[in-house]
Every structure is written in C-alpha cells, then in structure tokens.
C-alpha cells in the first residue's frame, strides 16, 4: 500500500482505529490511514459516508469518539486548547463543505480572518488576504460583502481563506461543488499547484483530474465504515 520513496517521508497524519462521531464503533467502523508529507490524497464516497467528518477530525475541529490520531507524530488526544488552536491557525487550512463565512463582512475581512490570530501586522494581513483572493480570481470582489456574493463566489472566498495563512496541511471538502466546470478546473489546477509547492493536501472530491494526480485515493462506504483494506492507492508521483 505504499509506493517507493513514500515510506521514507515523515508521517503527517496517522489514524489508528479511529471511530468518527456517529459511526459504528466496532469492526469495519475502525479507521486507519497514514499520510506522509507532501502527499495528495483524494477522498471519495457517497453522501453520509463521513468524508466531512474525517476532514474535521484531521483538521482538529472535531475529536474522534475512539482511536488515536497522530498529527506530525503528536498524539492529538493529549493536545490542549492552546496547541490545537495553534495547529489550526498556523499549519492547517480547512475549507468546509459549506462556505462558513461571516455574512456581514467583506470577502477581504473573511479571507484575513485566520491571519488575525497568527500575529501578522495589519498591512501584511491585508496583502496576504488579497494575494489569496487573487489566486482564486476574486481580487476585484475583495471589498464586496459576503451577502452580496453568489454561492460559487462564496466557495472561492472559503478556499482563499484556507490558503491565506500558507499552511502546510490543506483540507478541502468538495471544493468544486456548485462551481462552473471551467472555474472548477481552474480551482483543481490551483490546488494541484499548491500541492506541488510542498503542502500536504487532502481533497474530498470526485474530480477525475484531482484523482489522477493523487498519491492515495480513499473510498468511504455510505454508513461511515472504513474499508481500509479496500483503499485504492495510486503510485506516488
């Protein structure tokens, strides 16, 4: 299940016997997954199979009900609020399935939100947020209030927010949903470029281009069980 060279790279994510919230705690419900630094992993599976829940656990915004999750070798069950917040703010960029934006604030404010907590000066925050919006093609809408943006534009703002702090682990939950095929292709290309830049990227998507470039393709079953032995892995790049 590992390709040549992959075994030598440091392990970023290690799930051991993890049970997601709401999943069966026994047998096939146990999750095991290992992701090494710089990998591109795609998650597939039907609605309700637990793709979002898995990304939430990996992104430290939720806890598994059982099992161990080692992040960069650290046992996350032993991490306190300070360390979990530090990982979320500085090293993890998570794009939720729903955009999760502050509706009364501008696209720029929303994109700069994570930068508030990493101690960047105001000018640098603004520059980094504008650069992230530019990468998703929304530089012109930076000052527009979220409530006035389309659903597709809101999704792009959410992606820009995940990219803005320049995290080393990026988690995208269906990033191309409700996007025009051309925009979707551009976004997948962008994520692939981010991956090529050295980040570890997990994408929950059915996009064929992303799957083609992934080093691991993980398929989840409908009832949130984890067929670890059925996982399909492509050869690492």
């Amino acid at each position, binding site marked *: 299940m590992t390709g040549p060279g992959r075994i030598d790279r440091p392990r970023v994510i290690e799930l051991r016997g993890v049970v997601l919230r709401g999943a069966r705690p026994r047998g096939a419900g146990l999750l095991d997954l290992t992701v090494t630094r710089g990998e591109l992993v795609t998650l597939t599976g039907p609605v309700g199979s637990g793709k979002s829940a898995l990304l939430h656990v990996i992104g430290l915004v939720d806890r598994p009900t059982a099992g161990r999750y080692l992040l960069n070798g650290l046992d996350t069950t032993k991490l306190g609020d300070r360390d979990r917040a530090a990982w979320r703010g500085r090293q993890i960029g998570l794009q939720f399935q729903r955009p999760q934006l502050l509706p009364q604030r501008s696209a720029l404010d929303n994109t700069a939100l*994570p930068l508030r*907590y990493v101690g960047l000066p105001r000018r640098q925050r603004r520059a980094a947020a504008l650069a992230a919006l530019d990468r998703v093609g929304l530089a012109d809408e930076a000052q527009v209030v979220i409530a006035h943006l389309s659903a597709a534009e809101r999704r792009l703002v959410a992606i820009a927010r995940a990219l803005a702090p320049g995290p080393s682990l990026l988690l995208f939950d269906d990033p191309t949903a409700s996007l025009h095929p051309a925009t979707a292709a551009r976004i997948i290309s962008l994520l692939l470029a981010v991956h090529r830049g050295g980040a570890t990227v997990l994408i929950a998507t059915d996009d064929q281009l992303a799957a083609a470039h992934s080093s691991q393709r993980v398929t989840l079953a409908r009832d949130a069980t984890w067929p670890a032995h059925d996982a399909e892995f492509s050869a690492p790049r």
Partner: protein
Amino acid sequence: MSRRAVKATRLAPSDALGEAVSSIIARPGRAILACVGTSLGATWFVALLGLTSTASAQVAADFTTRLATALVVTRPQPGGGSRGVATQGQQDGAPGPNYPYPANVQQRLDALPGVLAAGVFWQLTLGEPARAAEPSLAGRRPAPGLAGDHPAAGGPPVIAASPGFLAAARVKVSAGRTFGTWDQARAVPACLVGELAAKSLGISGLRRRPAILINQVTCVVIGIIGHVGWRQSILRSVLLPSSAAIALWGPPDGLAGARAAVLIRIRPGTAAVVAREAPYAISPARPRQFLVSVPPAPLRLGELVDATLSAEFWLLAWLGLVIGGLAIAAVTMIGVLPRAAEFGLRRAVGARRRHIAAQVVTESAILGLIGGLAGTSLGVAVVVIAAYWRNWAPVIEPKTVLYAPLVAAAAVVLAGLLACVPCAWIAPARTLNMFGIE
C-alpha cells in the same frame, strides 16, 4: 511542519478591539437591541435607587424640620415659696409667688438669637370636664347644683397658654381670632377651641357666640383652631389665657400634675445653642433648675419611620438590581447564543477559547457601557422628573451614577461570558452546524 509544538496563536488587544468594533458595526440591529436592553436595566436600577434616596431624604427632612424647630423647657422641681424665681414679677396679669417662671420669661427668651417665639403652657387639672354652655353666662360661676348634672370625665383637655405659646406652636384659627396680650393682661376668660374639640363639644361656628363651661366657669369661645404647627393634640384641646387660668384656679401646681412648661420655636440649626442658653436667660442665678429637651416622641417615631422606609426602599432597590441584571443578562444571552457558529468558525481558523472570551468581553463592555450610560442618564431624568412632580429635592448618591454604568457593563460582560463559554467548549465543527452562518 516541525514535530515540536507550534507557536501559539495570539490576538493583540488592538485586534480584539478592532474585531469587536467591526462585529458591532456589522450588525447594528443586534447592537441597538443590546444597548436598549442594558439601558432599561440601568434605568430601572438608577431610578429605583434615586427615588429611594429622594424619598428617604424627604422623610428625614420632614422629621428634622419638626424636631429642630421646637424646644421645651421644664422645671422638674417647681419653685415654691422662697425657692421661686419669680417673686419679683408682680405686674399686671403676672403670676403669683408659686409660679415657676419669671413673669417676663417670654421677653427673656425672645431676646436669645435663634428664638422665634416662646410661651408658657400647662394643662389644667379640673374636677369637671369642659362642656358647651350658654354664652350669656360668660365669666360667671353657675349655680352649684348644675355641677352634678355633668359627667365627671371625658371632656377635651384644657390648656392654659400665654399668647407667646400660640405663636411658638404656630396656632392658626379657622374662625374668629386668637387671644393676645390685651386678653392676657386682663385675664379675660376667653378660649380657643381646637377643631376636633369643637366637634366633640357640638360647636359648629362662632355666629351663635358659643361658650364653654370649664370647672363651672363660663368662657366665651373666640376662635376655632384649624391648624397647629406643633403637637396635633392641640386640635383636640381647649386653650385659654394663662393669666385667666391663674386668676380662676391659681398658679400651676406641680404636685397635681399641672406642670408648666415653656415652648420655644427656634430657627432650624440653632437647637444646640438655644438649648444651652435658655436656662441662663430664664434664670441666670439658677439655670440648673431648668431642663431643656427636644420632644422625644417624634424623634423616635421619625427614626422608626425612616428606618422602616429605608429598609423597604433598599429591598426594592436590590430587587431592581436583580431584575435589571437579569434583563441585561437575558438580552446579552439572546445576542451571544446565536453566534455559536461564528465562535466555532473563529476557533476553526485558529482562535483560542480566551480569544473568543476576549472578543465577547470587549464587545459586551462597549455595548454595556453605552447602554449603561444611556440608562443612567435616563434613570437620573426619571428621578428628577418624579421629584419635581412631588416638589421634593432630588437626591441621588454620586456612587449610584458612577457605578450604574459599570454595574451594567459588568452584568453584560458576565452574561456574555456565561453565554459564550458553552460555545467555546464544544468542538468547533459541532458549533458550526448549530446555526449555519453562510
């Protein structure tokens, strides 16, 4: 990514302030609701405390005014024979040798600074109660047989008083006139009847020239007392000139219970000085024979009433504080709870629990202070308007005005923290789904 612990996220105070102000501006409706709720709580608190202190001060002022403007001089061991002090005062209408005060006691006391009026009075101890009589018999003793026809007790008390006493007690007649120095000098058996005494004696007016039989002596009623500024019991009494009482029944006899006293009406604030000087003014040689006292009964009553009112008002004020605080807390919680998703999002992008708390505290403090200041102003206005309406002096403790906005802000901050703590403890992914934001 390094294996060692990642550097903690942080939120600079300026960023917390900026984020709080941005959040307030982003949702003006919510901010206005919070301010209005807070200001109503603060208004209630300040108005109740202000009205309490205003009413308490008014009650205290009423009693203080009454207490500080009347002094009573008594002589515990009235002089008899050689111990008397007034043997020299044998003028027209002057008391006899057993009279306990100098004949010119009124003038002696009037000369003291602070004294507005002074006069002697005593209650007559009579064998028969006073009753209404035919006016034509005024000044004459009726036939002895008549005395047996009347009940032995139950009539209004009869008080011998000098004209100075009428001024000192601020006696005002509703009909007729008072007796003056002319009546006093000639020992005229004319009397004043208190309004309530007149009713009990069946005297409705002066048109039929009513008279009263006092111990078988007929006295013409020359006036009906409608108002008195000292003891209200005077309204139930009959007053006649002290010279007439002495002429008819002799000087007051301490052994029989008819002890003469001097009532002094003084300017407010001079009680201590006058009380010290009065015995010397009456008798420079024997000042220790006289006892000066502020009427004790109204003092105790005043304190009792004041204490009772204060307790009631303080209970109300504390109730106001609790109700105001609960109102503020409810409004704040209503404002904070729906923001669980926002707090979840902030935590998902790196905010720590303390950063969420800092933002809530900053926002709550700003809204609480604005609402608290507005509410305090409104509360002061309510107190001033209420006091103006009742013609009272508005009294508000400076501490109330100082603390009210702070108390309101503290209530908002506390309620905000209480509301945000559960949101901050639940995993961000779960709060995000509580109330979807977008």
